[in-house]
């Protein structure tokens, strides 16, 4: 059986960053397995700009951003195999992948999972009404337009105000479609503010909040949708129905970490629907690391890259046998916090740790408080917090070394 020190599953932003970091730290026996025909993952179809503001201090398109990393992968001569789908994974890190004409088995010392996420489908949100075509997820619509060169509709309603939905509102408009509105079930948008401005307001596309599709109608192709307002329990409010004739409903209703391989090995999953990890991005399965959107869905690719580096660093430490695992501190999401990554911190770590977290709902004038028991470890003021924007909190080694009990992260009004 072929052996490789570090196998990275997924050659998108997270996987490439992990590979480059591990290489930098002296791991030379690396293999990236990518299911698509080229490296880069979903960024290949993100031809809009806005990428790289943190990483490169400039605004790049998705392909420009990813090519900077692909170039480095080539410079560093890191091996990768495209069109390679992992079909089996075991706890002792034996990987089977399949490609045209070949099924190969590899034994890895460490694995970084960087498999990205998938879109929630019409079925997943139990979209009510007829089963007609013309209902399509935003990412798939984006792929048809930007990669394959096809239009998916002419009169479009977009359900969900996640970033891809907003981006597709603009993209479809530029391509000649009439985007009638964007409808969001929550009382606030799930997308970044800059996208609401640049993709909706600049094109006079209305955004309806607390409103969702209560019915889709169409014999073969979509003919119309009914939008209804919802109450706080997400039930339709009778009398608020609004019928809109359209041939396409684009769904931007959430992304879910793609973790089917982690399920094969019984990896514990947390509130992000991705694995639970420690500060080295190591899952509860020894030597298996996770990063990027398969761990938790990010809003900005620059943070995915950074997290990929963390995982690459963790895997390098693991391969060099430098992780001690002498006990860990739990990190618990407290009041108004939906999740915190990582969920554990190695007690003996000699590195600063960045906590990544999201709030449950938009709030103004808040302190983000990190506590250990009654002791306040850090307290950071935020003018406003929204679920769509991930909050980063740095914990220094000195502070971590002071901690004995579990950590809680919570919001506190001013």
């Amino acid at each position, binding site marked *: 059986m072929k052996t490789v020190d570090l196998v990275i599953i997924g050659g998108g932003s997270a996987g490439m960053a992990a590979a480059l970091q591990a290489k930098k730290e002296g791991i030379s026996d690396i293999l990236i397995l990518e299911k698509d025909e080229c490296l880069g993952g979903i960024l290949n179809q993100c031809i809009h700009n806005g990428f790289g503001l943190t990483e490169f201090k400039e605004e790049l398109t998705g392909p420009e951003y990813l090519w900077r990393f692909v170039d480095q992968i080539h410079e560093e001569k890191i091996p990768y195999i495209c069109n390679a789908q992992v079909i089996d994974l075991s706890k002792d890190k034996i990987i089977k992948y399949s490609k045209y004409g070949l099924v190969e088995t590899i034994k890895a010392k460490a694995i970084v999972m960087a498999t990205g996420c998938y879109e929630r489908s019409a*079925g997943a949100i*139990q979209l009510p009404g007829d089963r007609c075509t013309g209902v399509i997820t935003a990412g798939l619509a984006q792929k048809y337009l930007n990669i394959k060169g096809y239009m998916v509709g002419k009169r479009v309603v977009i359900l969900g105000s996640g970033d891809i939905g907003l981006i597709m509102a603009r993209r479809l408009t530029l391509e000649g479609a009439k985007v009638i509105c964007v409808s969001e079930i929550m009382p606030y948008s799930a997308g970044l503010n800059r996208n609401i401005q640049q993709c909706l307001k600049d094109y006079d596309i209305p955004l309806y909040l607390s409103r969702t599709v209560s019915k889709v109608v169409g014999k073969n192709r979509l003919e119309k949708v009914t939008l209804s307002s919802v109450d706080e329990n997400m039930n339709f409010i009778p009398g608020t129905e609004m019928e809109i004739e359209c041939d396409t409903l684009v769904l931007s209703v959430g992304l879910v970490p793609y973790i089917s391989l982690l399920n094969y090995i019984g990896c514990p999953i947390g509130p992000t629907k991705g694995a639970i990890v420690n500060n080295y991005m190591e899952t509860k399965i020894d030597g298996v690391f996770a990063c990027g959107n398969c761990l938790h869905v990010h809003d900005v690719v620059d943070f995915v890259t950074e997290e990929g580096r963390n995982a690459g660093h963790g895997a390098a430490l693991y391969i060099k046998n430098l992780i001690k695992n002498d006990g860990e501190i739990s990190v618990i999401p407290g009041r108004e916090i939906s999740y915190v990554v990582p969920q554990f911190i190695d007690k003996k770590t000699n590195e600063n740790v960045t906590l990544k977290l999201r709030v449950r709902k938009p709030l103004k004038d808040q302190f983000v408080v990190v506590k250990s028991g009654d002791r306040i470890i850090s307290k950071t003021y935020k003018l406003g917090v929204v679920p769509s924007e991930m909050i980063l909190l740095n914990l220094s080694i000195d502070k971590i070394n002071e901690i004995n009990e579990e950590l809680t992260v919570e919001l506190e009004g001013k």
Partner: protein
Amino acid sequence: MENLKNLHDVLIIGGGIIGTFVARELSKYDLEVGLIEAKNDVGDGCSGANSAIIHSGYDPLPGTLKAKFNVLGNLMWDEIAEELDVHFYRIGSLTIALEDNQLEVLNSLAHRAKENGVEVKLLNAKEVKELEPNINPNVKGALLAPTAGIVDPFLAVVKAMENAMDNGVKLYLNNRVEKITKEENIYIVKTNKGEYKSRVVINAAGVHSGEIANMIEPIDWKVIPRKGEYFLLDHFMYGFVNHTIFPLPSEKGKGVLFTLTTSGNLMFGPSSEEIEDLDDVSTDKLTLDSVKSQALNLIPNIPMHKVIRVFSGNRPTTTRHDFIIEPAKSDKNFINVAGIESPGFASAPAIAKYVVDELVNDVISLKEKNNYISHVRKHPNLYDMGLENRAKFVENNPEFGEVICNCEKISLGEIKDTLNRNCAPTSIKGIKKRCRAGFGSCQGGFCQSRIIEILAEHYNLSPLDVLYDKEGSNILIDTIKEGK
């Protein structure tokens, strides 16, 4: 009017489980057989949207056709599934009592099972919990029917048709029957596409069987379709549910049940709503909410975030509330096989055999073919062959290494295999039904664009002309500006 030249011995109207099973049964004999289907694939009506349970047969009232054919049909499934290369597992069913006073009902069901000749066993609460750890903890007891099974409903229909076609049966898709007349003892079935002649006509048109039967003579029964809405979950763990689980049956049917699909997905439903539009397969929130709350009563911890699809199907319930398997009153050459609701899948093999051996045999002489092919060409199922054999197989068949559907891990080779057979798919849904590509967590989000390309290449079409499902269900409507 090309078809007018072709005189059939038997023409079947409707390509559901009944039509295709009857077609396959007839293909054993020296006969010209044709099957007319209104849609662009077989199995797209009720047969493609039901619980896919091979019921044990304890439930139907003794003496009914349902009881007779269910019990007989259940016994035939092992052999048929093997011949058709279709997944079929006898996982057993549990009918659950949640109140003490329901235990008596279980007793009477056990008695009914005995009358129907079906093996069952009464279990106490502890035994039920051992078999089903996630069952409502208030469970009081259950009736176990070990012979109940599950089958792949899509493949059962498709493979029966494929096998029938391997044996010479002709399939006429996209033909909606408009009128049936009889001239000189020959039926002329007029569709939107042409005319088909036949000595014998079998009406297996599901929810439309009433309309078809009425084209011959006034009938004393009526189809009152009942819609059933379901939830389908991704396969997420083994052992969450191990059997088909029924609540106690009621007047309206078997109630909201839990079952597994042959690929390990959990499914629950159906609702039961009388509807007017025979082809209405929409879902609505109120009904789904009600199905969900009934389901939670059986299994309180359903992982709802694993739902990947909701769907509905229409049972062809008739005013007789039993199967109708009989010739028209005015003509023995016109055979109605109607009202085949639950337990239709279980009964189908026995119904097909009865229709051919008794009703068709009564009007035409049947001579067995000496070159009948009983088995379909085995599908190269990578999952079933195990990982060791898979490597060798892929070496020799490279396209089976190229994985197209990431979620279900379906290869290009498996997809192309469905295209190079009789009863091949012509749509994205057709491929999904035959090899599960697009059936997983992402519901085709990742692989649909590739499937479109594969279909376009195979049929030499523009991707713009590839259909998702029915006529008019194209996914792509135009090229982008730059493409012009």
